């Protein structure tokens, strides 16, 4: 109805469609289903009487693919309410949102890799040191205080209190 083209001048309409949640969810479900089908390609299916290893998984994968396709079509056909042009605030910045995702994930993986060789205390330091980058609000002094406080708390609950066999310090 409007003649002045897509809602955002810089953005191609096709690209715009990929920002819709339903389009993305549909694609996600389809991708997971396709991956599942590929992994299970050699699983024996068997018969309905004696179902093989692959019977139920492949059935579910096809079901998921169908559902994903429906969500995708719903997303494509969605009529979007015309969005008022907004100013870009830091809140809209997708890159800024990646910050906590990366910091939290990496801190957990680093904690996992460190735990059995470096012991609990150093691993907590590693976790806190990385996870602090998830937010800009933590000051350096606060981070240090949190690391010390959490070490003591964890020791009190899990090692002194529950007697869990986690090494506190590296064994060298």
């Amino acid at each position, binding site marked *: 109805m409007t003649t002045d083209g897509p809602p955002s001048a810089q953005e191609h309409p096709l690209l715009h469609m990929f920002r819709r*949640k*339903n389009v*993305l*969810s549909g694609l*996600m*479900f389809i991708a*997971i289903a396709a991956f*599942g089908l590929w*992994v*299970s390609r050699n*699983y*024996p299916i068997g*018969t*309905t*009487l*004696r*179902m*093989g*290893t692959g019977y*139920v*998984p492949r059935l*579910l*994968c096809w*079901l*998921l693919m169908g*559902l*994903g396709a*429906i*969500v995708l079509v*719903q997303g494509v056909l969605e009529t979007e309410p015309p969005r008022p042009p907004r100013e870009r605030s830091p*809140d809209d910045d997708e890159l800024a*949102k990646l910050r*906590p*995702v990366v910091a*939290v*994930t990496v801190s*957990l*993986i680093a*904690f*996992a*890799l460190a*735990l*059995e060789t470096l012991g609990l205390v150093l691993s*907590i330091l590693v*976790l*806190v040191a990385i*996870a*602090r980058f*998830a*937010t800009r*609000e*933590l000051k350096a002094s*606060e981070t240090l205080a*949190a690391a010390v406080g*959490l070490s003591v*708390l*964890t020791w009190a609950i*899990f090692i002194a209190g*529950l007697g869990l066999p*986690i090494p506190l310090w590296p064994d060298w």
Partner: protein
Amino acid sequence: MEHFLANLGTGFAVALTPANLGFALTGALIGTLIGVLPGIGPIATIAMLLPLTFHLEPVSGLIMLAGIFYGAQYGGSTSAILVNLPGETSSVVTCIDGHQMARNGRAGAALATAALASFFAGTVATAMIAMLAPPLALVGQSFGAPEYFALMLLGLIAAVVLAHGSVVKAIAMIVLGLLLGLVGTDGQTAAQRFTFDFVKLSDGIEFSVLAIGVFGVGEIIANLTRGGQSRSLLAKRITRLMPTRDEISLAWPAALRGTALGALLGVLPGGGATLSSFGAYVMEKKVARDPSRFGKGAIEGVAGPEAANNAGAQTSFIPMLTLGLPGNAVMALMIGAMMIHGIQPGPQVMTERPTLFWGMVASMWIGNLMLLVINLPLIGIWVQLLKVPYRFLYLAVLLFCAIGVYTISNSTFAVILAAMFGVLGYIFVRLDCEPAPMILGFVLGPLMEDNLRRAMRISGGDPMIFVNRPIALGLLIAAAILLVIVALPSIRSGRERAFQEG
């Protein structure tokens, strides 16, 4: 009636031992704590604390975990009323009128109303469990593999109907959960499925790893991306706790209505605390003589939903305890906890382990009584806790998630897996895909496959077995009707309105 009293007697004998009283109190305290603090829910907490219950007696472990769940319903109202931030999703609607009451200087009355309404609802719901559970378990005992398969299917579909948002997405999430549940060694052929040659995956994905990842880590990431929320604490001093006579006369009928609605919705698969509180708020607005008072501090808007969410939280134990069927994600966790202790959930639990069953039921009432004490006189302590900023909180929660996962599986691989599920959980939140149905599918997946295979073997591969057995057929027809109902556009829009209202 005689049985009823004898059973409760058995239960109280178990629940009143000093150790079990202690576990009920611990659970209630932890529940209140996480209920008050926004950003940590009962699902992640119960998943994190599962390893702590390994060394306990099964009944003690379950008493504590149950305490966390209903304790969270009490605690959630505190931050809703005082800070206008729902501590739990089930207290979202309490924010509306509860916080307005606090602004009008009636914070004490709002808190007292919430606690008393919750206690009343908890008492009624506990009695309902004690009365309804034995006959339901009896029905369950006559079920064979086809009936169980049909019942689980009905449960999953009902969970979809009651979920927020898109129906198709909710079904897709269930299917995804079913698929994740299949990871590991196939119980019948001993073949490996979706394990990518990781030995650690051959026992399947640990339930608590998935739950902590999606609900714990995923929530942390989602909260952090939303940025800092400013909190305005509205309680310098809470002086008068007692509501006035006028307030009481408005509140108690609302609490009655909320209890009835919550108790009913809690039993339904997919129901539970959140749906109950939303439903109760809508209902209070409808029956009120002057609906315009709502949103400006109407006490019914606190009493109704708070009674409803606690009643719903309690009665959602009914299908879990009697049929082994989890109606919501927390009940799925409780089933996981039972299985860790080697208890096969199902109708036989009540007859084979009466002390466990009735001990748990009795402890729920005791726990509710404790919560009344924890919440009213000790309110000041919880208010202090609300002042802990999220930038410290998330570090602590993240660390407890990591240690919790490690202690459950004794493997660092599981921690990495939980981190991956955390990212997945965040993606779900961003794409409006509710993860709760996925957890249900995950728990029910292996059970459903097992029952389907068994049914097929009974019938010699003939799917007509589901048609020839009247109970199975009835359950499947009910599932089909539900599915058609949600698919109809007029009802769908009504459902969406119901969720948005308030």
